[in-house]
């Protein structure tokens, strides 16, 4: 296998809070090849967005980020200075955020904001930047692109704004694009369109993408690899096929029970839920974080949790097969 575009080893993110330290992300490992789509899945607050912001170097000043390794195309991001990170951001790696309504600056036109992304990194004229903006607006399916350049964000709908955000992220032709729940804030009818567009563009321009979402339906359609996060840890990673066909961690199985999948969910059968609440991550955390909500919890869950499986499908659980041996294999 060739050298991966992105390689992360043992990423930890700590946030100082009133009563101590919030260990928001702990011991994350993953790799991403060029042209690959990795989907990070998990519920709100599981640390998905923090992980992506950490890659971009956009965490707040008070947030502490540590990693054994965090390489982007051979560049060690853990040692990269502010200037070097700035040169990468928006040029070789760009990001699309969740809230298209508020992610564009209300005081400037679409054209100015699109052109800025290119002008910051390339030595081009304003006219060239505008031409590139028109080209990309057309690419993301915006009609009468040239006339949109003079419009302000408030004049566009949410779906159009997210298309503009995508165009903006593509201005410099990045190698990696991180999309943080790019469709959650949009109408359901628009969601599919935007996602389809994004995936097509990624394939067409041969970019790698990290798609952060809590929508497993989306993941099933677009991801090559899946990483399941729970309360700041990766509980299961693997190829999309492996995760969907043989989910091993109790949490992953719980998640899959929560969505209807064609051909797998029986008509009329109730969808699953995962009872309980996500634990607090302030202070020392030992053992499995999912044990408070897990049907298979045993005394050993308070101890060290082993990594199980092989490199292309791995999960963390005290049970060798992800469930108590005295029970039937759960669906």
């Amino acid at each position, binding site marked *: 296998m060739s050298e991966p575009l992105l390689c992360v080893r043992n990423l930890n993110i700590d946030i100082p809070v009133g009563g101590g330290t919030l260990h928001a992300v702990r011991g994350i490992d993953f790799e991403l090849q060029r042209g690959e789509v990795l989907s990070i899945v998990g519920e709100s607050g599981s640390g998905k967005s923090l992980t992506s912001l950490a890659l*971009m170097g*956009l965490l707040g000043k008070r947030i502490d980020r540590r990693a054994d390794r965090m390489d982007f195309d051979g560049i060690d991001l853990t040692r990269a200075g502010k200037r070097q990170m*700035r*040169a*990468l*951001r*928006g*040029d070789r790696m*760009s*990001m699309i*955020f969740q*809230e298209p309504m*508020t*992610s*564009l*600056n*209300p*005081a*400037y*036109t679409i054209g100015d904001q699109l052109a*800025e*992304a290119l002008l*910051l*990194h390339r030595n081009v004229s304003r006219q060239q930047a505008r031409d590139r903006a028109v080209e990309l607006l057309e690419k993301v399916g915006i009609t009468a692109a040239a006339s949109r350049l003079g419009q*302000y964000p*408030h*004049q566009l709908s949410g779906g159009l704004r997210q298309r503009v*955000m995508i165009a*903006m992220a593509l201005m410099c032709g990045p190698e990696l694009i991180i999309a943080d729940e790019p469709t959650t804030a949009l109408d359901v009818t628009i969601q599919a369109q935007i996602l389809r567009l994004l995936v097509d563009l990624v394939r067409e321009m041969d970019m790698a993408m990290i798609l952060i979402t809590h929508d497993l339906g989306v993941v099933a359609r677009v991801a090559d690899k899946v990483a399941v996060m729970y309360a700041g840890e990766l509980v299961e990673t693997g190829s999309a096929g492996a995760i969907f066909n043989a989910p091993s961690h109790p949490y992953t199985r719980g998640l899959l029970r929560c969505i209807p999948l064609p051909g797998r969910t029986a008509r009329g059968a109730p969808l699953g839920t995962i009872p309980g609440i996500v634990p607090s991550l302030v202070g020392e955390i030992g053992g499995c974080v999912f044990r408070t909500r897990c049907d298979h919890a045993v005394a050993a869950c308070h101890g060290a949790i082993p990594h199980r499986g092989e490199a292309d499908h791995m999960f963390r659980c005290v049970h060798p097969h992800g469930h108590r041996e005295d029970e039937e294999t759960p669906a």
Partner: protein
Amino acid sequence: MLQFILKRLGLAVLVAFTVSFISFSLLFLSGDPAAALAGEGASGEDIEALRTLYGFDRPMLVQYGDWLFSALRGDFGESYYFKLPVATLIAERLTVTMLLGLCGITFALVTAVPLGVAAAIRPNSLIDRIALFLSVAGQAMPSFWFGLILIVVFAIKLGWLPPSGAASWRHFIMPTIVLGYYAMPAIMRLTRAGMLEVLNSDYIRTARAKGAPEVQVLFKHALRNAIIPVVSLAAVQMGFMLGGSIVVESIFALHGAGYLAWESIGRNDLPTVQALILIFSMFYIVFTFLADVLNAWLDPRMRSS
């Protein structure tokens, strides 16, 4: 946008007329303006003569209409004390007050905006604490007392600046500081709060994600949005300052319109007082109207609606 401006203009005119009526009626607060004008110990005949001379015997609304139409033509009557047209008197003095107001608001903006921005960039830092201290102290500082302290220190003890008068630009330094410091706290707080809010917004994160340098993030993306409400506050403060210049002008013996107002009130020179109240109100009305228009123009969301 045009509709908005017209609506605000209509409101401003209506407010102006109401204010003019109130400032005119102040004259009748004492009961009998003729008796007040004649002074204590005047005979009944004297009072009657004055009443006819100044037209106080007519119905109040007729007098108001008369006064208003003259005022609209720039004729505010004759000063009881100076025996000169009030308009001439005020015109002579207004330059000093306007100059002082302009210097004051400039001083306030030049100190408050950078301080507010710096404080917002590093909350709870030393600079934030200094800014907070300056604004809390400024809100509690009696301006007449502050002015006197400056005179004692810089004019009397150190001898660096002239204590009073308006002969040169150096005469304006202390009055500018006192008047500007009065407007500074509010502007500083609004700049800081606005910057804090904007810096936490999603579009600032977008700008950073594009790889924009921090200076560009702060000034092009953040300040441009945070400054919009500050502009209209500054205009409102400017209106307040002209009205408040009376204290500063009296301390530093700056012979501006505020000083004239103070003297005229002491002398019971009602036509002059009425005219000054009206003019200071008009300044406020014009400034707030301009602020609204400027605000609408700075904010693309209002500009295009």
